[in-house]
Each structure stands twice: as C-alpha cells, then as structure tokens.
C-alpha cells in the first residue's frame, strides 16, 4: 500500500525512477493507482484549502 502511495506521490511531483515504474507496471493493480490518485488529489485540494484558510486568517 505504502508503495502505491509513494508511486502516486512521485507522479504528483513528476519524478519517478525507471525501475520503480517498471515494477509498478508489472505488479501494480491499476485500480489501486487510480483510487490512490483520486484520494491524493482530494487531499491536495484539502491541503491547499487549509493553507488558504489559515493565510486568510
């Protein structure tokens, strides 16, 4: 699970090693990646919103 999250996080930053990606695509379940992606995107939205709320005081 942690591996999936790590890979998706790497995707968000646009950074990934060749071997890791090969591993992902050999072993990984695409649905897991998509779901993790959506969840992390929601987390990102929440995070930006949180920072914005804090900054707005």
């Amino acid at each position: 699970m942690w591996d999936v999250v790590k890979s998706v996080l790497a995707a968000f930053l646009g950074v990934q090693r060749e071997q890791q990606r090969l591993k992902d695509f050999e072993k990984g379940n695409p649905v897991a990646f998509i779901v993790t992606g959506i969840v992390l995107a929601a987390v990102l939205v929440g995070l930006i919103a949180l920072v914005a709320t804090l900054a707005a005081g």
Partner: protein
Amino acid sequence: MRTLLVWLAGGLTLVGSSQVALANGWNMPVGVSSLSGEIYGLHMTIFWICVVIGVVVFGVMFYSLFKFRHSRGAKAANFHENTTVEVMWTIVPLLILVGMAVPATATLQKIYDPSEAELDVMVTGQQWRWRYEYLGEDVSFNSNLATPRAQINGEEERGEHYLLEVDEPLVLPVNRKVRFLFTSDDVMHAWWVPELAVKQDAIPGFVNENWVEIEEPGIYRGQCAELCGVDHGFMPVVVQAVEEEEFDEWLAERKEAAAEEAMGVDREWERDELMERGEGIYGSICASCHQPEGEGSPPAFPALAGNEQLISDEDWHITTVMNGVSGTAMPSFRDTLNPVELASVLTYTRNAWGNDTGDVVQPADIAERLEE
C-alpha cells in the same frame, strides 16, 4: 548557426530599441494609491525571478545547442534519467513558489482590509458609461466619453487624452479611504484605473466592493476592462483626486447645483431651451445606440427617427424612457436623469430629425409622474 545568431542579435536590438523609444509607459505604473506601489513591487519581484530562471534554463539550453552540435561531431551520451537531479528540480521550484506566495498573500490581505471608509461611492456600469453616486450625499452623475466622434473617425486631430477623457470625472479626496460599491444595469463591466490599482467587475443584480486611498492629487485615467458590447472601447474612467478641503467644497457646490436644478422643475420651459439641452443629453447618453441621427442600428437598437410608435404615442415614449425595456439594452432612466434632463431629451427626440410632433414635454409633468 551563424544565421541564427544574426537573427537573435537583430531581434534583441529591436526589442531593446522599442523599450528605449517607449521608456515612458511600457511597464505597470507605480501608481498613487496606498497599495499600488506594493503591487508594482510584487510584479517586479516576480518578473525578475522569472528572468533569472529564464536565463539559467535558456542558458543551459543554448549552451547545449551550441556545444553539442551534430555538425561539430558531438557524440550523444547515453543517460536518460537521474533521480537526484529530478528531485532537485522539483523541490527548488517549489521553494521558489513558496517564496513568491508569501509576499503575494500579504498584499492580498491588505487589499481585503475592511477598516471603515470615510466616503462611499456607488459605481454603476451601463452600456456605455459610468454612473457615480456619492452615497448619502445626494450627489450623482453620469460620466460619458468626451472625445468627439470626429476624432475617432479621423476627421479631426486627436487630442492628448484621446479616448481617455470624460465629460464629468469622478472627484475623490486624497488621503481618505474611499469605499466603492460596484454594480451594473445591463451586462458585465469592469472599472479599472491602473494608477489606483483597482479593477473590479460590475455585475448586474449584484454588488461588489473595493476601496482606495489616493496619496497624490492628480487626474488618473482608465477604461472599462470587460467586453460589454459595441462601445466597450469607448467607456473611459477618469478620476480627479483633489485635496480634502477642495473636495468638500466641490461636494457642497454639487449639492447646491442639484438643489437649484430641482427648483427649476416647476417653471414652464421654452421649447428651444429644452431642445438645446436635449440635444446635448441625446449626444452623450442615447447616440451610442440610437445613433447621432436617430437612425438606430436594428435589430438591436431601433431607429427613433420616423419611429411610428414614438411619434403617435407620447405616453408610451415617456414611459419607455423612464422605465426602460426589460431584456434589452434600454435601461430605466428614472433614477439616472433628473426631470429636467428627461423632459429635454424627450422633447428633443419628439422633434428632431423630422419627427416634428411639435410636442413639448415639461419637466413639471415628468416630476409629477415620478411623484405619483
């Protein structure tokens, strides 16, 4: 390769010379409001950060293009990833962005400063003029483009403030916080004066607010910044900032003038008097849609010259001008023109361009309709 360098040099010279020739007014103005300087500073900071990043990135790129040319016999290396480098060029830009966001957030917070204002001005956008109301002061007026059509059409030499001049500027005091309320009568407009660093949309049916504190007296010019129809380009904003005492005097004078005008409503007006006044009002308010000769531009803007209904039905004519027509560009003028102005423009349109009805609409009649 040599051609490339020659062209590059040529291009740079061109850009450089245009900057020198136009040194006056090729960048965002520093402005005269309490926040405009800060916004200018923010703009320049981000600009220079972009320049530095650009120099580094394009530097490496052009170095590579020059150094690793195939024609020089360069042999390609065989690397195609490097996690360290990739993490670096993700993290470093992220930090730079945080560095940009901090001052930007601070400035934004100042823009949203809600402390109490000393003067409230309601700004209403209308196709194609601005209307200013000093709330609680009984002073309000329309502000129309003052540049003659002859200049626009090239029949006359263009003046210094071509397209950026109005018949009545918005007069504001310096060193007082002025709160603006923006709204619109028809479509979206945007009120913008670069030197004041205020740009806010005027939305029909809704109000928006913003504020300014001007620090230097002077005349500041801007334009409507949201496409609002045919004459979007002919809807300037002019703000005249004056010392506080001067402003108070001006406001008192305006109140007096309004009161005087109201007194004149009751007397019987001469036809010529109304016609003359009406022609002026028609030119600044009506002509942009209905055209200077009343020919209109159908289907959007009907002709007034020779308009059967207008000629035969005086009551319909008066109600239409007073109340406007819903769902069209024809606004209601009951609040924006006073009885004398309404009577003048009605008399004018009933008698100009061969509409010779001979009718004289008296200000007193209009006032009575408004009172009812």
